[in-house]
């Protein structure tokens, strides 16, 4: 028997985690954000339960402001997996017309943080798979694989359960829920290598192409649809760009790049000098901001 490689070990661990959840909780769901981590997570779910269809639905907490390419892949990926796709949009955010241009951090709070809580409550999910990795951000380095949330979805860093060996304690009281992170031990490079090796379909935006852009507040933003209001003096220019991380298009900064294939992207990533989350506007305030977000219930 050959020794398992690091990717094989990671894959096997993630599958083990997913099966534990399905065996021990009543109503699991997989949070599917259409990003590269979600793509890997979905692929692992197919592996974990084959020949069964993964025994849980996909949930996309939508903000209506994602890239059009993401919406396209979302439908296709769910269809290919044969899984039910639930799309949730916070009705309050719809009613108030919350958008990233006028509402700043309220946009994330209402669409994502509140939207996620509402969706979990509405469907009564007691466990939600998320694609977060411990290497993404400092406060995530201490996150458990099984992260407990109180009945009002709060994360209490002082009250998390120790995780020993492969033994995950999934017991909980009524109303409590678990966020489960099967990719906890993967790094960004692992994700890319795995996508490459397993030929997993990802949103084309990860690969470079000429796209309409403006530069605003130091970020290269893509003008993905007609809702993008131009400020005085701004002009839309075609630039060869790609994205290292995908979210709401008005909040996600691109990098200029000529990497049009997956291996070229990996190559650029390995030679690059800025971290992945830098493209996300919400992290810039202070280095502990993610932790605050998490306590409030942001995934």
């Amino acid at each position: 028997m050959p020794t398992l490689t690091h990717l094989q070990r990671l894959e096997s661990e993630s599958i083990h985690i997913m099966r534990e959840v399905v065996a021990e909780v009543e109503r699991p769901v997989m949070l599917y954000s259409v990003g590269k981590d979600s793509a890997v997570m979905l692929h692992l779910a197919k592996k974990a339960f084959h020949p069964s269809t993964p025994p849980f639905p996909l949930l996309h907490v939508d903000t209506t402001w994602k890239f059009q390419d993401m919406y396209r892949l979302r439908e296709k990926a769910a269809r290919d997996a044969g899984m039910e796709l639930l799309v949730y949009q916070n009705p309050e955010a719809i009613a108030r017309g919350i958008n990233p241009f006028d509402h700043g951090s309220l946009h994330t709070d209402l669409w994502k943080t509140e939207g996620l809580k509402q969706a979990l409550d509405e469907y009564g999910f007691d466990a939600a798979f998320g694609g977060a990795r411990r290497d993404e951000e400092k406060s995530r380095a201490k996150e458990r694989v099984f992260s407990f949330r109180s009945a009002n979805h709060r994360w209490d860093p002082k009250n998390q359960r120790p995780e020993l060996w492969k033994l995950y304690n999934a017991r909980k009281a009524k109303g409590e829920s678990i966020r489960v992170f099967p990719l906890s031990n993967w790094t960004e490079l692992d994700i890319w290598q795995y996508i490459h090796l397993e030929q997993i379909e990802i949103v084309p935006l990860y690969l470079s192409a000429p796209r309409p852009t403006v530069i605003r507040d130091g970020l290269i933003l893509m003008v993905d649809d007609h809702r993008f209001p131009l400020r005085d003096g701004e002009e839309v220019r075609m630039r060869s760009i790609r994205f290292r991380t995908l979210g709401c298009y008005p909040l996600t900064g691109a990098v200029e790049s000529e990497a049009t294939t997956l291996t070229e992207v990996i190559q650029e990533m390995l030679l690059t000098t800025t971290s992945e989350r830098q493209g996300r506007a919400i992290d810039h305030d202070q280095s502990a901001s993610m932790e605050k977000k998490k306590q409030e219930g942001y995934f």
Partner: protein
Amino acid sequence: MANDIYKTDELIARDIDAYLEKHQHKTMLRFITCGSVDDGKSTLIGRLLYDSKMIFEDQLAVLEADSKRVGTQGQEIDFALLVDGLAAEREQGITIDVAYRFFATDRRKFIVADTPGHEQYTRNMVTGASTADLAVILIDARKGVLTQTRRHSYLAHLVGIRNIVLAINKMDLVDYDRARYDGIIGDYRAFADQIGVGSFQAIPISGLKGDNITSKSDATPWYQGPTLLEYLETVEIDQTRMIERPFRMAVQWVNRPNLDFRGFSGQIASGWIKPGDAVRILPGSTTSTVARIVTLDGDLSEAGAGQSVTLTLADEIDCSRGQVITPADQPLEVADQFEATIVWMAEEPMIPGRAYIMKIGTTQATVTVTDEKYQVNVNTMAHEPGKTLALNGIGVCNIATSKAIPFEPYAENPDLGGFILIDRLNNATVGAGMIHFALRRSHNLPWQTIDVDRTAHAAIKNQQPRLLWLTGLSGSGKTTIANLVEKKLHAMGRHTFLLDGTNVRQGLNKDLGFTDADRVENIRRIGEVAKLMTDAGLIVLTAFISPFRSERRMVRQLFPKGEFVEIFIDTPIEVAERRDQKGLYEQARRGDLKNFTGIDSAYEPPEAPEIRIDTTRLSAEEAAEAIIESLSMSF
């Protein structure tokens, strides 16, 4: 310099495919770092991340700003800030939990568990060590081997880590003095022998200055060994050990997409398997052969330790989560009493006799500590007597589980010998344990043959023992009827005993609530007590709601055929609720009383009771008469 070791930038730029091909065959090493508060642990890890270019420019900018603001190194970069994650602990200046860090070289991917060093957090270190292949134990060269060093080494050894690196840090502060270094190694060796650590690798380093971390230091010409990173990259991971052991796979999940497919999914704990291999399912005596090893990428011709797979078997047999698949000729031991080391992780102490939930492999059982043999003082390694275990306490205990568990000693197979303990009320993980051995095998445990046996007990009372099990909703009249039956039997000169809520719930079972789990345990205990009483020759009456069929069946199975008499006190819920003498239904309807049978907890009526009493047609007196009569008393 660092680039040469960690990332071959040149190869990445020139031939990315070659680079990726190379990196797909990397192995993985998980290690923990342990040290006291000021040993420079965070600085060392920060340095490894920094030198491995895992720190990007934007993070570096934050780091530089933070270093000036809250750092302890003046205007220099404070590497420790890279790893001290949570805001609260940053303010306190200490790490308070287990954090996982990642870096990679050309040869290996590394996962570092950063565990805190101070005493109250033994829990965290054991947690971090449980998944580690290797431990880096930091020693401050100025201070030498301290109590904490001993504690960390003992804990690493306890959890089964075979690879220990003694990183003698802050060598710059002792002028790279070789005698000092050798002295510390001597001290440590004496201690290591004492606790059974066979070998270790000592390395003189400076986390702050970078000596012997990624490249050999000019300041220690007298040191010929590997740098820390060299050692981590090349140390043999004990990967072959588990694959060479017999095949074991705990079933996690039964995969049933349709009626034609029944697969058993799990992660292989040890050994390897191929189609055609004869297997046994434990606990139990079922055997079969492996038909297929099913994966999304097609069937495998073999699979081994560490892989997550789905097996199908040649025969249609019962096999469910918690059972373990083994080779037919190399089964596991199955037992329900063990000696184990327990590490306590909760504020509320471990109490012998209290029931906890044990999770081991993929199975759960109720467990109690029957005897605490001794506690280990982690500072002196002394064995001390104890009655309980406090937070961070370590004790060697005898434990008893509610059901037979297939296992292997922890030292041989951590997946099948390591367990966690869960509090039954708040579901917290309160302890971790490692099985040493089974105290006796439960499956061949004979009851002691005693001359005065149950027949003798019954004979002297001139009666046939019986268990009259009354079941029905709250307010159905069980207790009233049971009392009347007992009075009548007593008048007939029979030796009886009535078990009901008043004499059981307030004593034997006062630790139990009304959750489903507690209800199950409640009935189990009553069944066992009733069994002892019938062994003593008594006619036992019980009056409990006992809502679940499976528990009533479980009790029935404890008794010889004919001895268990199920009596269904059949009262429709509307009638019972109308009576509601204690006002319980009203409380339950208001939501003040949770898990109330018939309201928000199910009642499963008996399907074939020996006796059925319709209380809408019979008075209590008539019901009691009817019971006595239909028993056609052979007492």
